[in-house]
């Protein structure tokens, strides 16, 4: 694993911009509502590994994703 993301669930607003840009399909839509009525994204159990490319964070309007790389 080269990269890793953490999702700040209360920040996510379910816009799915990150989903659309993640080159590895590492992210998936969520199903559980947070306290603000949105379903934050989750790590896609079927997706490929995160490369730490940070594209998801770059397009995320809500600074809901933090990215780590080795």
């Amino acid at each position, binding site marked *: 694993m080269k*990269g*890793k993301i953490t999702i700040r669930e*209360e*920040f996510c*607003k*379910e*816009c*799915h*911009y990150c989903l*659309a*840009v993640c080159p590895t399909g590492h992210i998936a839509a969520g199903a559980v509502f947070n306290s*603000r009525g*949105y379903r934050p994204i989750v790590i896609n159990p079927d997706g490929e590994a995160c490369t*730490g490319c*940070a*594209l998801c*964070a*770059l*397009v995320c*309007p*809500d*600074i809901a*994703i*933090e*990215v*780590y*790389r*080795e």
Partner: protein
Amino acid sequence: MKNIFSKPKCFKDNIFHYCPGCGHSIAHRLLGEVIDEMDIRGITVGVPPTGCAVLAYNYLDIDMIEAPHGRGPAMATAMKRVLPDRVIFTYQGDGDLAAIGIAESFHAANRGENITVIFINNCVYGMTGGQMAPTTLLGQKTTTSPFGRGATSAGFPVKVSEMISSLGRTAYVERCSLTSPAGIRKTKKAIKKAIQYQMDGIGYSLVEILSPCPTNWKMTPLESLKWMDEVMVKEFPLGVFKDVMGKDKEEVVTHAG
């Protein structure tokens, strides 16, 4: 592992009040990143608008002063004249800049005030619930153009970058878009350049940022980006409209990225 992406240092850690997919918060973040990178938090004063971004001070941890709707450029003019060694920017929506504030915007630019204007073009009055803006596209339905904007009664969309760049004393004008990673990176570069120009005393700079307003466009966030790339950018072509330090008008690219 090393954290390679989290909120800018000059940010407060509040959840944005913006709608899902709104471009304002991306623009805020880019501004924050630029302020971090240029290490100017301590000398920067921002003038948020009356508009959805009125609460920008909830996020950017810098000195900020609210402007009455449309009057940011007048305020910023005075602040910069009084404090020439500070970095002063306004942050304005299309209603704020091009409707109620067109006089202040026009004249601050015409005087060539050494300030930076971050201009969020989302084709609509976001904060008040989606009324027609000067930048609303022809045919676009809004709550005050229920049959679509008609040129005969509302005129053509106002082209802010084009107009501002035609004024003699403006230094740098670029239109960017937030629809793609490349567009976002380009926007950040533009913001940085604009502020650099101010710090170098080169003069007035404006960065127009095409930005989604899914709520008032009545689209999903992803539909919004698509509409921007396919429709909005046709009316508002991207590119550098003026750069007194470079070539006067770069090739105008019609798609983000």
